[in-house]
């Protein structure tokens, strides 16, 4: 029986004028564009410099800042008031104020303060911007000491960035995009498919046949399972070819987690479709649901930054687990034995959602 149902599903998918194109085109477009757009790398910050010293040293500091690549000079402001106007007008993101007598005080071995004022409306921008700026200033101080030929004891700190030494933001976002695409495709498509069958009346025709509802649902799951595979493979191919990003860990592990995950989201899609009678309803619910789930997955913002109640909610977010797994395998090369909690969680979700999908599918009212 399953054979015939599957045959039907595949024929329908291939005959659809839209879906096969979507399956091929959408991952490609998203993978080509999003890593560039979904980038929280902070660079080209607009800076206003207030140089009250006008000395060789203050000019040198200003040059060092603009040459760093993180900052783009907006203007030399005459006063803090003027600089603030630039910030208000959106022309500047950050202000650095080099005090009067900067050079003299430094040569007298006094400790000099340099004021940094960052527009922190975007906390990330303000925070990272000022961090970059202060590390440039520290470097500058070290540089001066070294030039003076002193027995300068360099700092005791050695920092090391593991797994992503060049702090490449794309490496962080790309594995997460895989997860997002898998979720969108294997969640939305089966939901719409089932609601469309409801609207056209074919579901009722199925319901008067002795077809087992478990088998009917499996026949809906398997095609999306394969679609998920195709999408994941396209994504990984593009990641390797375009961005040179290859998984540090095992490819098999990635597919195993993906298989289970697809079952989870497709199951969820079917549950939602079982409770919706029109396309519009299914769309709205799905849409709302996806928004929330994606935002609470750690895709853009770290889960550890969330308040406790939100962190608790994320424990029932399947997206979060695959996101963790994908990043861990791709960047860190973690093995499955190190990601067992996630494996159990995903298996649990798969059982719950698919069980629920079968139970909530009513052949009779």
């Amino acid at each position, binding site marked *: *029986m399953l054979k*015939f149902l599957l045959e*039907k599903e595949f024929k329908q998918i291939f005959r659809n004028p839209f879906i096969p194109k979507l399956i091929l085109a959408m991952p490609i477009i998203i993978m080509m564009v999003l890593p560039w757009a979904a980038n929280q790398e902070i660079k080209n910050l607009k800076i206003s410099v207030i140089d009250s010293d006008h000395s060789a040293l203050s000019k040198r500091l200003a040059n060092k800042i603009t040459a760093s690549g993180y900052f783009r000079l907006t203007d030399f402001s005459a006063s803090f008031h003027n600089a603030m106007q630039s910030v208000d007008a959106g022309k500047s993101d950050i202000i650095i104020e080099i005090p009067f007598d900067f050079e003299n005080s430094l040569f007298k071995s006094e400790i000099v303060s340099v004021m940094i004022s960052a527009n922190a409306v975007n906390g990330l921008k303000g925070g990272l911007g000022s961090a970059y700026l202060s590390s440039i200033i520290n470097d500058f101080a070290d540089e001066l000491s070294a030039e003076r030929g002193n027995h300068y004891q360099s700092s005791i700190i050695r920092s090391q960035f593991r797994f992503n030494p060049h702090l490449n933001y794309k490496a962080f976002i790309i594995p997460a995009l895989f997860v997002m695409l898998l979720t969108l495709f294997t969640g939305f498509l089966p939901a719409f498919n089932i609601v469309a069958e409801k609207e056209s009346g074919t579901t009722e025709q*199925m319901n*008067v046949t002795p077809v087992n509802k478990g088998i009917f649902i499996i026949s809906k799951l398997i095609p999306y399972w394969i679609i998920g595979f195709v999408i994941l493979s396209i994504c990984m191919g593009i990641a390797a070819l375009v961005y040179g990003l290859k998984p540090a860990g095992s490819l098999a592990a990635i597919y195993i987690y993906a298989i289970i995950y697809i079952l989870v989201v497709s199951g969820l899609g079917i549950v939602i479709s079982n409770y919706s009678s029109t396309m519009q309803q299914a769309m709205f619910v799905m849409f709302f649901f996806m928004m929330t789930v994606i935002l609470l997955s750690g895709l853009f913002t770290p889960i550890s930054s969330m308040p406790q109640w939100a962190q608790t909610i994320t424990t029932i977010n399947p997206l979060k687990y695959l996101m963790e797994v994908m990043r861990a395998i791709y960047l860190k090369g973690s093995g499955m034995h190190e990601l067992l909690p996630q494996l159990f969680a995903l298996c649990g979700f798969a059982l719950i959602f698919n069980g629920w999908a079968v139970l909530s599918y009513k*052949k009779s009212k």
Partner: protein
Amino acid sequence: MEKVISTNKLTKKFGNFIAVDSIEFEVEKGEIFGFLGANGAGKTTAMRMLCGLSRPTSGSGMVAGFDIASQQEDIKKNIGYMSQKFALYDDLKVWENLRLFGGIYGMKKKEIEDKTAQILQELGFEKERNTLAKLLPLGWKQKLAFSVSIFHEPKIVFLDEPTGGVDPVTRRRFWELIYRAVQRGITVFVTTHYMDEAEYCNRVSIMVDGKIEVLDTPKNLKAAFNAANMDDVFQQLARKATRINN
């Protein structure tokens, strides 16, 4: 004669609304049973209960020897069903629809192939074998849907307004298919709005406001109501309805 359908005080309520009000009737093997009634009289609801699509609120019924409340899946193996709107897969070809439903009823591959060839020939559909169902004209779609519903040789076939929206000639041809099915021993349970079709039935029941008002052969009914045709009988009964027809 063998009874293939029998009901006992079969009732369906939706909230306070009694859609089907303890109806009782029997259908014998091999007959064409016309199930008439105005819109909203409750015939589709009753039919959905018999097919196992809807659970009765109270009362009971037997279809093909199985209980409609507890043995719905067994009933489904023994019946065919054709709904008011074309409910086959639009984006599957004619033969693919036949193959799908044959497969669902557990028919063997060879069996499906032979039967498909035979049906396409009977319908004169050989040329349309590879046509997508959505491209067929409505009358053809109805014939296809009927063929699908009896593809697995069920004991009973339920037809819910099978000929809506087509011209009298096409309807006539459709009824020829029904007669052919009956000759093979299939019991036909049909709802319709067309009173000329009611005349083709062996027996006819007419529902008014959720109850079966009359049940007899068309001939006896016409005599009892002193009417020239079934339409007249129907009009006389329908006027009694208190529910709003829409």
